[in-house]
């Protein structure tokens, strides 16, 4: 074979292989299936309406069998107190499961700082939970395929498959993941997958007293949550990480991280 013929043949081979691969990508049945999913679970939180009672945390821990006395939780409430001297004080004692009952800010290590009413500029509560990101960094780093995104956008953890390496816990920019104290596998909020798949509200949404938490379907244009997200001013946390979080907030302040 001449050198010229060899190059010609190689070129043809590469083009054919490339086309075949491209075609294979185009007609991937999974992608066609995914495009037909008519559900995209999202969350909408109105920080104005959170009273910091922590009943959502209590309900979540009982519903999802997270040992109640442990400090870990699938969802939590943060308190932000902004004082007139320009300082930001924030705490979330025990994930807020017992509510916020004192003006004392928990500084950790058993220390507290009491903030007087006249020093407060702004004070508010921010409920947090898994953002069920469109580009979940926790899923990308899993070496064994134990964590994944379902068709409706919810990120789940396969307890039988998880090897407990903790990569996903490090990868989540929101600090949502932790090790389950009993199962010793990665654990996270999954929007109460057993409830939403039966058409129920999540435990935290149901327990929420002032309707601060709402669950929605972004692919349903008539969903009130979707309408709010599409027409009103909403904000997401840590947009700069590029994970496209799907927990939207109204009445949030820039001090919230």
């Amino acid at each position, binding site marked *: 074979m001449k050198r010229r013929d060899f190059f010609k043949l190689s070129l043809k081979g590469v083009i054919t292989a490339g086309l075949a691969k491209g075609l294979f990508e185009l007609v*991937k049945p*999974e*992608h066609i*299936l*995914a495009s037909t*999913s008519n559900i995209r679970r999202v969350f909408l939180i109105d*920080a*104005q*309406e*959170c*009273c*910091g*009672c922590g*009943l959502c945390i*209590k*309900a979540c821990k*009982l*519903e*999802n069998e997270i040992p109640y006395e442990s400090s870990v939780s699938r969802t939590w409430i943060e308190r932000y*107190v902004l004082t007139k001297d320009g300082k930001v004080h924030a705490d979330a004692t025990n994930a807020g499961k*017992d*509510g*916020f*009952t*004192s*003006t004392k800010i928990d500084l950790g290590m058993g220390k507290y700082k009491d903030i007087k*009413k006249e020093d*407060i500029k*702004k*004070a*508010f*509560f921010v409920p947090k939970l898994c953002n069920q990101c469109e*580009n*979940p960094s926790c*899923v*990308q780093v899993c070496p064994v*395929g*134990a*964590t*994944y*995104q*379902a*068709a409706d956008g919810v990120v*789940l953890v*396969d307890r*039988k*498959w998880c090897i407990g390496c903790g990569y996903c816990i490090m990868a989540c920019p929101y600090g949502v993941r932790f090790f389950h104290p009993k199962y010793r596998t990665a654990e996270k909020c*999954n929007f109460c*997958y*057993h*409830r939403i*798949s*039966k058409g*129920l*509200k999540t*435990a935290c949404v*149901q*327990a929420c*007293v*002032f309707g601060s938490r709402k669950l929605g379907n972004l692919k349903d244009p008539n969903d009130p949550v979707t309408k709010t997200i599409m027409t009103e001013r909403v904000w997401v946390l840590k947009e700069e990480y590029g994970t496209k979080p799907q927990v939207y907030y109204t009445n949030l302040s820039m001090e919230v991280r």
Partner: protein
Amino acid sequence: MKNHVFRPLLVVIGLVAIVLIARLFIVPKDFGVWERGYMYGWHRKGNEDEWKAVKVKFQGREYCKDCHSQQYSQISGTPHFRIQCENCHGPAIDHPSDPPKLNIDRRRDLCIRCHSYLPYPTTVRGKIKGINPDEHNPGIECVMCHNPHKASKPI
């Protein structure tokens, strides 16, 4: 090819074959690339059903309504109607069969979750009627004087 090259090569090929055959048996049939593609959808499909099969514990106030209609009508129309029954009475699960009796949380801690006054005017919390739990009858359960189903002045 010389023998000292060929023999280890055979061993390597054999090992690869063993791994591939073992993989056939170990990896579940439903493990693969699902809806969200290779990057996010690489998982065991059966796990989705395992999550869906988790027991529902909080049933919501409509579950309580029929048997406890008296309490339901008593609380409806009061400010406390916005609070789910199970937030204080505990998750119903399969009540009345299992558990036959729910443990009502009557502790002060439950009431002061909302009614410990916090001077946070920029949220809904600042608008809730509240007390200072250290000064307002410390040590006594709130339900000694107040009926949570008729949230108003003391009895």
